[in-house]
């Protein structure tokens, strides 16, 4: 076969030029996010402004990290579960974290550093553990049971949260704001906590990206083509769960990103996870940075929850992409 024919047949790994373009776009969005907000900065003012260095910059970096984490986890989950409707929260991380945060807020732990986030993280991990425990049969994981248990427990915990909110109406706003996500309290300590987790977690997903392709052909088929299916699934679920739990404990539940970004990228770049994972990482970061910037600017001085912005911007964009691709289905 001639080498020139190959690109038409399979695109293989990520294209470095696309990665470069997406990185430039991300950096541009981050620059814009740094300059615009409740207070706008000029290039000459940023040098000595503590607001810029202590509030704005860590916030923009956090939104990029969280966007990358959610999009990469969503990509991995959709392949592991072979289900297009899976998102990073499907295993109960979001509801567990929200319940933990709500309890922490009601106990008045907001004053403590990591008070709310720490309780949210522990609650998220406990919820996922509980779901695994229910869904594992012997030492195998049954993915359908895992999904159904996740959905069921999520609904149960949401009901508990509503119950708590009705009982404590005075704290309702804080809890709601948390369950819709916000980067308002981001600091450098959040960044130093989340960045290493993100690097390791995303690294693991990239490492296993070809195995994700094979998992799409079915567990048994993947196993007969040389994938240690149970190990790969376990490692991937552990890595993604940890990074999503940390992200959620830092900034609350930001929906839609983990579901929509992988699909949007897939519609354009095809199904190969070796491309999908790095592209989704950059697009997810870009998308959340843009949404957070919008959430700070469009109704200033008040701020919208970024979780509502991701849905408001993302849903129409995604419907447009589906419509454009209609003929291929």
């Amino acid at each position, binding site marked *: *076969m001639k*080498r020139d024919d*190959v690109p*038409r*047949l*399979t695109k*293989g*790994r990520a294209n470095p030029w696309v990665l470069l373009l997406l990185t430039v776009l991300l950096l541009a969005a981050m620059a814009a996010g740094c300059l615009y907000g409740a207070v706008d900065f000029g290039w000459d003012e940023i040098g000595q402004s503590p607001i810029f260095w202590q509030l704005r910059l860590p916030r923009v970096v956090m939104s990029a990290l969280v966007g990358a984490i959610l999009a990469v986890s969503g990509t991995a989950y959709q392949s592991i579960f*072979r289900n297009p409707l899976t998102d990073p929260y499907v295993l109960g991380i979001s509801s567990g974290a929200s319940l933990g945060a709500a309890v922490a807020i009601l106990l008045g732990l907001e004053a403590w550093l990591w008070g709310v986030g720490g309780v949210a993280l522990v609650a998220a991990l406990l919820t996922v553990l509980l779901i695994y425990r229910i869904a594992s049969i012997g030492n195998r994981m049954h993915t359908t049971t895992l999904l159904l248990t996740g959905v069921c427990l999520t609904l149960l915990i949401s009901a508990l949260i509503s119950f708590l909110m009705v009982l404590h109406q005075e704290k309702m706003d804080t809890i709601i704001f948390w369950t819709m996500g916000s980067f308002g309290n981001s600091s450098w300590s959040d960044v130093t906590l989340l960045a290493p987790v993100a690097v390791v977690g995303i690294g693991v997903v990239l*490492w296993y990206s*070809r195995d994700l*392709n*094979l998992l*799409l*052909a*079915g567990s*048994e*088929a993947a*196993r*007969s*083509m*040389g*994938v*240690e*299916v149970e190990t790969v699934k376990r490692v991937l679920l552990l890595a993604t769960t940890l990074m999503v739990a940390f992200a959620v404990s830092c900034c609350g539940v930001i929906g839609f990103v983990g579901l929509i970004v992988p699909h949007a990228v*897939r519609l354009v770049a*095809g*199904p*190969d996870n070796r491309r999908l994972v790095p592209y989704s990482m950059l697009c997810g970061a870009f998308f959340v940075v843009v949404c957070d910037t919008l959430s700070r600017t469009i109704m200033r001085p008040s701020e919208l929850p970024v979780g509502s912005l991701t849905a408001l911007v993302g849903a129409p964009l995604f419907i447009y992409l589906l419509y454009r691709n209609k003929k291929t289905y």
Partner: protein
Amino acid sequence: MELCLRHLSVAFGGHPVLRDISCVPAAGRITAIMGPNGCGKTTLLRCIAGLLSPDAGAVTLDGAPVGDLTARALAQQVAFVRQHAQTDFEFTAFETVLMGRNPWQRRLQNESQADWDIVERCMRQTGTWHLRLAKPMQMSGGELQRVMIARALAQETPLLLLDEPVSNLDIAHQIDIMRLLRGAAGKTTLIVIHDLNLALQYCDDLLLLHDGALLYHGPIAEGLTPERIATVYGVDAHVDRGHILFDYDGLS
């Protein structure tokens, strides 16, 4: 490479499916695995493919139990074409066949020229090269089956397992696939097949299962006698010039 089944027994929920099966399928030949529905044919293949660990006994490849091999090492020796292929994904036929190269590739390594050449050869051999840009949903059952066989061939294994590869195909495609398997030179091939005449025509050996036990293992021409067919299937048949004719309603 020597495949060896030793005292293989499997039970599902206390109900025995395979009972004490021992045999050494001949290397480089096509062995038909036959028997009525539910007699344990697929279970036998899944044990050999390392997808199911037997309750007793072992399957060995050159003396090593398949359960002890890593998925990668096993996939370099055994390719398995399952009865039902996954069709709900978006990879093209070319990319699907390319996945068969996985056990030979290093992690994070891109495919090499050699991989692409092997994929092209396997697709041409199975008559699927013209489908290289088609997605599973755009293919007919026969085309998809041939792509799956191409993927298994691309694994370049000495042992090839096929679970009912021709059951959903018309007679022309059945013959195509059986010819193709005959042409896959040097492979030890185990194939679950229902059509007695097709098996007689294209297979060398027969593994005949009856209620989970091995009733016959040997050359197929001597194995498919009217007595055994009556025992296993409960159907009257007679052999006429190398063809098996059935007594459909007691008229023959």
